[in-house]
């Protein structure tokens, strides 16, 4: 079976769920080899094996992560040249897409981003993309080079199937061009125990209607009862109530959970762009005219400070 490279997303060896989704997808289309860049492979190994990586190309050199994106693309380009895989899969995160793009230039290949599904049709990789906020569905193919596909998180249910995860060390001598944008400081915002926004099955978001950073505890309490991630509108983020990594929307994260609960969010077009492919949408807003109600499966017109705590309590009662 033909080899498919899967770029691993991880934090010091903590493998992200999207990588397990990509491995699951790659198994259906070929033989997945994971590409692990950075430190922490020993920690990652079991997970990668569990989800079917036959081989793992490991590149641990600190140089690879000390510069913005370019070194990762260089390493992948080397692997593509040396091993001629059938396709390269990356997660459609901000950085994943950038790696994919640079790799495409280096290998004169086509790149497709934000795929929600990927299939082999007559030997060609065909990606499904949901565009214009889910109002159109397109199928696209790469017509030259090695297909490079960036897949959205939450698109494939991850399923384990054990493989060896045999370690193959790779080294690359970076060109000067890969070392132009130096990361001099990493500022990590502590993220707590809640599920990751793009990976969560349920997301509860708060907007300007929440009113302050302290009052986000009302949103968090509901999220915790539901085992959900917490999201925020730009208005809430720009007011400093919630960190920008939680922003849902055009310039924030795109989420596609089973359930999205919008509290005190009007539903501006830029917010919708990040959440309207959610399976079930619920909103609480005191303004019956708020555009968010055009999207919902269930909406409550009312004060979120009455409705949300009552819902939180009711869920607790039913447990």
């Amino acid at each position, binding site marked *: 079976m033909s080899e498919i490279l899967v770029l691993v997303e991880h*934090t010091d060896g903590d493998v992200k769920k999207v990588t397990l989704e990509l491995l699951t997808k790659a198994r259906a289309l070929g033989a997945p080899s994971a590409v692990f860049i950075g430190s922490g492979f020993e920690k990652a190994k079991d997970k990668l094996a569990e989800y079917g990586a036959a081989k793992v190309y490991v590149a641990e050199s600190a140089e690879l992560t000390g510069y913005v994106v370019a070194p990762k693309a260089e390493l992948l380009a080397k692997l593509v040249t040396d091993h001629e895989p059938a396709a390269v899969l990356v997660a459609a995160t901000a950085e994943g897409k950038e790696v994919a793009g640079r790799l495409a*230039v280096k290998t004169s290949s086509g790149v497709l981003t934000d795929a929600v599904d990927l299939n082999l049709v007559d030997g060609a990789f065909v990606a499904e993309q*949901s*565009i214009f906020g889910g109002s*159109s569905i397109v199928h*696209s193919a790469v017509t030259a080079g090695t297909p490079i596909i960036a897949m959205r998180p939450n698109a494939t249910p991850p399923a384990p199937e054990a493989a060896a995860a045999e370690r193959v060390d790779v080294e690359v001598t970076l060109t000067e061009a890969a070392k132009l944008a*130096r*990361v001099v400081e990493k500022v990590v915002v502590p993220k707590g125990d809640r599920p990751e926004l793009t990976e969560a099955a349920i997301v509860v978001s708060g907007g300007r209607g929440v009113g302050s950073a302290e009052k986000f505890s009302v949103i968090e309490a509901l999220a915790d009862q539901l085992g959900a991630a917490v999201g925020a509108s730009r208005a809430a983020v720009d007011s400093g109530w919630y960190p920008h990594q939680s922003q849902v929307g055009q310039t924030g994260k795109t989420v596609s959970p089973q359930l999205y609960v919008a509290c005190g969010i009007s539903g501006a077009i*830029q917010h919708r762009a990040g959440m309207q492919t959610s399976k079930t949408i619920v909103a609480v807003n005191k303004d*019956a005219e708020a555009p968010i109600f055009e999207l919902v499966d269930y909406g409550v017109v009312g004060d979120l400070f009455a409705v949300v705590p009552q819902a939180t309590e009711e869920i607790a009662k039913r447990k």
Partner: protein
Amino acid sequence: MKIVVLVKQVPDTAADKRLDPDTLAVDRGAVDGLINEMDEFAIEEALQLVEKHGGEVTVVSMGPEDANDAYKKALQMGADKAVFLTDPALAGSDALATSLALAKVLGTLEYDLVILGSEASDARTSLVPALLAERLGLPQLSFASKVEIEGAAIKINRLTDYGHDVVEAALPAVVSVVEKINEPRYPSFKGIMAAKKKPVDTLDAAGVGIDAAEVGWAGSRTKVLDATVAPPRAKGTIVSDEGNGGVELVEFLASKKFV
């Protein structure tokens, strides 16, 4: 300091966008075009940098012949001049082909800094800044929420999944900005009048040395096979909270097995 800002004209975000059934590209004729909102933040950043460090701002745009609202808006906000690349051969260009064409235009210009918005609201790939950096062999400073320049050095905050990275590079560089970076100005009446007299250099593909086989439908390395309009969402239930809204909400969640 010479700054080039790249801007794109896109279909109005508020309008219903669709793909042209014949070409399977964004149907630009169907809705009004206007400047990609994120690009206004790029222009604003360029104007502020020039106000601080001196220099000039050139706006570059690529698109169909009548797509001139985007660069006009940039001129009205205060950019000094515009370069407009338009050629039927460019129609259908994917992100890779677009970046190739833009790199060619940049090859004809002198600059210390290239600034873009981090995403266009129509295709939403966010690829072009990284592609341009790759093609031009320049530092990629994307998703910037803050830009500082000192002499020939540039430092940005790059927003990431975990917070942000502080990234340094030497000029020239390619920067893409997020909407957190500034508050774009509105063009003043004076600005609107002045824009009418600002130079606009209209170029075609051959004029900047673009090989027509490498752009447009011919040069793109991806192809849309088919497009279908998704069925609209079914209309939901909307209730008013009469004191029991939270409980009713949970009933709904329970009916969907979320509780």
